[in-house]
């Protein structure tokens, strides 16, 4: 159970960075850290002791395999995380060209 609690501590570190940091790059890093903690937790739930990799050997009889369903979900989620981070970086570089800073408190002026 300690592993689950440590995963949640990593999630809380990411959430702390999301709330208290003012730099846009650090906010993007915190989002990424939160996503990584969730991936690890999902794969940890599906792990079976002394289970094999989910590649079936056609010659052997029924073995115990690790759960393949959380792995399929996390595989999709990793690529989606890349897409989200890339879009956030595109927004960040656009905002830097306009306001010359990454500070989110200076970006409040909604000029036309």
């Amino acid at each position, binding site marked *: 159970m300690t592993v689950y609690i440590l995963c949640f501590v990593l999630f809380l570190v990411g959430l702390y960075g999301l709330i208290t940091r003012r730099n846009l790059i650090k906010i993007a890093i915190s989002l990424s850290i939160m996503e990584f903690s969730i991936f690890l937790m999902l794969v940890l739930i599906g792990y079976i002791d002394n289970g094999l*990799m989910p*590649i*079936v050997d*056609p010659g052997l009889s029924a073995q115990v395999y690790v759960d393949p369903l959380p792995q399929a979900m996390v*595989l*999709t989620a*990793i*690529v989606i995380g*890349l*897409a989200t981070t*890339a879009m956030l*970086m*595109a927004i960040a*570089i656009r905002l830097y*060209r306009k306001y010359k800073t990454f500070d989110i408190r200076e970006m409040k002026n909604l000029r036309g």
Partner: protein
Amino acid sequence: MSTIVKRVTPLLAGLILLYGIYIILHGHLTPGGGFAGGAIIAGAFILLILAFGSSALNLKKEVAGSSNTESIALLMVVVLALMALLFGTKVFFFNYLPKGEPGELLSAGVIPLYNIFIGIEVAGAILTIFLALVIFKEESSK
């Protein structure tokens, strides 16, 4: 970049491309599949762009080529899924090609075709994102 990098990088990028194609094609036999192979192929092209610099390419043509490739690959995935409405039980996304022996390269029905097209689509998308950032950097620093 220096001359050593410019000589070694085409050899390395060729090997990485070949490895990516191997992982896509054997996606139903060994770990890997469409997403891993597509990302590796995109990595090979990104390595070439980083080594030779953005002034050695015709950037507008590159991004047009990569975004057309990813659009056509995504369209082929939907066409393959719709063709399942014609054969066998008429369900969307059914596995209608014959499944051979498990463990051979030509087995598992329509899954190797899905792997190939999803791999091309993922490679095209990641390359388009990277090229868009490079073009923005070039254009706004002129």
